[in-house]
């Protein structure tokens, strides 16, 4: 496969035949991305004009923020991630996704769960725990849907036709096992049979870290390890680094849970351990980054939107890892704790690192499944440019604004003045998200052209039959 033209190659039979549920997960995931971004924009408006929509309880800032977060994490990132994981497993294992119908039903139920959950949060049924706000009833449906998809995915992995497990498959194995573990632990210990007091905060912190650094990171890295060598036409030079990076990431990332609790009312060893492992996370960050970027060449970078996005995703990963390590130190935490800096860091992971990787996956997977090339057009240029500029602006404004907020809070400036001085930065963040949202419309239009091209051969006879009902039987020739 040569670079650049990859997106026009028709996929292998097992990819195409596994495609239905995958496409459904991708399409509905993108719709949830739009919903999540619109909710994010509403929170942005609330921060500039607090009275906006204040007659309605469902437009409360807190509810909008929770709903946006859940729509983006469970509706978009997890769902598109699951879809692409199944596609990748089918492709790397050379097998058709078993139980396509069952996978489709599970995917539908995943969406049912989120469709119940998001309005539930807006109606005030949220649990009040960060990233776990989805109401109980939707959580059960979500978990069952996940289990079905994960079992089907794991079967693909263990029935693979080729022997060795690639780096990509190893990361997918981590993702598929880690999510049910953390999700069930967190739901049982925090929502269904809550543990007492600060234990909730400790386990909540553990869940948040595992959700971002375990589940979402694993999927994104799996995509990058599979896509980057193929798209750039270069085999990664430092594959040994990939192995060391894998194990050291697994070892250190699970212990950073207490980083949000520095100075908090918890046993002192928890934040101390988090500081240490946060700094040590620099090791896997460097190793993984080296193995990802070693094949990168500036000449080929612009050859396809997928390659550009995948490279941008890898760079976001590096920046995130370095910033996490630097801000693990107590002196930095003292200033930055409770500021928008960490909101910015979350957006960097969710939109930048994970989001870009998912978009790159979509650019490769959709044409292969449909057998229709996605031409490098003005739409893809608009999408890629808008996405990267939007996310860059949104993240940078919060990282910088967060610093100023932290210094002001530390200097004893009163809360209202701090918030007022933060508003211009929040406004920049709003514009970044707006640009990000706008560019997704270009992606949807682009994908729609592919779907229409795909349907055209089926549509022609139907259209002809509709237009000339009298000669219905002979419509084939027209």
């Amino acid at each position, binding site marked *: 496969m040569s670079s650049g033209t990859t997106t026009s190659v028709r996929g292998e039979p097992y990819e195409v035949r596994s495609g239905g549920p995958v496409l459904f997960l991708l399409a509905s995931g993108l719709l949830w991305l739009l919903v999540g971004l619109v909710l994010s924009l509403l929170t942005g408006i609330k921060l500039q004009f607090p009275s906006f929509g204040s007659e309605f309880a469902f437009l409360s800032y807190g509810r909008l923020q929770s709903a946006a977060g859940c729509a983006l994490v469970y509706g978009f990132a997890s769902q598109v991630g699951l879809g692409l994981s199944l596609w990748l497993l089918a492709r790397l294992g050379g097998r058709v996704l078993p139980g396509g119908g069952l996978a489709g039903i599970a995917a539908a139920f995943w969406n049912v769960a989120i469709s119940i959950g998001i309005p539930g949060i807006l109606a005030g049924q949220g649990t009040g725990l960060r990233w776990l706000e989805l109401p109980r009833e939707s959580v059960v449906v979500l978990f069952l849907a996940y289990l079905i998809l994960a079992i089907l995915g794991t079967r693909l992995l263990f029935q693979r036709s080729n022997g060795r497990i690639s780096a990509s498959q190893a990361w997918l194995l981590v993702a598929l096992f880690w999510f049910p573990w953390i999700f069930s632990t967190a739901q049982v210990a925090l929502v269904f049979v809550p543990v007492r007091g600060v234990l909730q905060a400790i386990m909540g912190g553990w869940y948040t870290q595992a959700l971002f650094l375990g589940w979402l990171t694993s999927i994104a890295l799996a995509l990058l390890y599979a896509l980057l060598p193929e798209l750039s036409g270069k085999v990664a030079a430092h594959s040994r680094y990939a192995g060391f990076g894998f194990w050291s990431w697994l070892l250190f990332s699970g212990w950073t849970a207490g980083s949000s609790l520095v100075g908090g009312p918890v046993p002192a060893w928890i934040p101390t351990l988090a500081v240490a492992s946060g700094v040590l996370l620099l090791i896997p960050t460097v190793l993984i980054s080296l193995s990802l970027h070693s094949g990168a060449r500036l000449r080929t970078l612009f050859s396809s939107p997928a390659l550009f996005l995948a490279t941008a995703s890898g760079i976001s990963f590096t920046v995130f890892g370095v910033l996490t390590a630097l801000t693990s130190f107590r002196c930095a935490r003292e200033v930055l704790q409770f500021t928008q800096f960490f909101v910015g860091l979350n957006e960097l992971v969710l939109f930048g690192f994970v989001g870009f990787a998912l978009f790159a996956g979509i650019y490769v997977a959709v044409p292969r499944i449909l057998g229709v090339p996605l031409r490098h057009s003005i739409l893809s240029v608009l999408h890629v440019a808008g996405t990267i500029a939007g996310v860059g602006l949104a993240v940078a404004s919060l990282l910088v604004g967060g610093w100023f907020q932290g210094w002001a809070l530390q200097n004893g400036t009163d809360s*209202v003045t701090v918030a007022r001085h933060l508003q211009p930065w929040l406004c920049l963040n709003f514009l970044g998200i707006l640009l990000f949202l706008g560019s997704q419309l270009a992606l949807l239009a682009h994908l729609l052209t592919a779907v229409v091209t795909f349907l055209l051969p089926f549509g022609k006879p139907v259209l002809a039959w509709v237009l000339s009902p009298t000669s219905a039987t002979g419509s084939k020739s027209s």
Partner: protein
Amino acid sequence: MKHGAVLFCGILTAFSASWWGMVAYPQRQLAPLSVYQGTNEAGNAYQYPNARSGQAVQGRQIYVSLGCVACHTQQVRPTEGGNDLARGWGRRRSVARDYLLETPIQLGDSRLGPDLANYGERLGTNAFPLARLFNPRVLVTNSICQPLPFLFESRAIRSSGPAADALVLQGAFAPKAGQEVVPTLTAYQLASYLKSLQTSVELPEAPLPVVTEEASK
């Protein structure tokens, strides 16, 4: 397949370690923590933390459901962790025992607004100013906190005269002539919860600072 088994065992070990260290072990360590029974200087017995009144408990549910935690933390860091004490957000640092009865915990991770761990204490002997919920800008001109008018009823003044608990609002916030703004039960519940936020109780692990004559001057 051999390779797969090794990989799986390795992943399982890493996960178990993290789960044991961050979930199981803290549970074991913090399980013995109980309500503190002490005696104050005057020789009276006291216990802490105490269960909230029924109205405050309902108010807490409203606090959770509105997502106030998005902007307000409820934790006072020690001096080496930040300047919370210097800001007057509490007289001592927050400790695990403060949250023994809090479910779901509302520690918070963002401070777009002030910390509320000791909000009730800052009010002193005053009742919670309900107008602050109707619109925070009634009392704090530049506040970016959102108004919660849906906790109030705007209605025509009854023939028997204005309600005793109608809000006193002036200027841009004043209701139209013949109208009044009256708090609903929900507003009272939330106010009751906010008033109940007080943690300045002496604990062996978190003594209150001794106020000397010089310092108090």
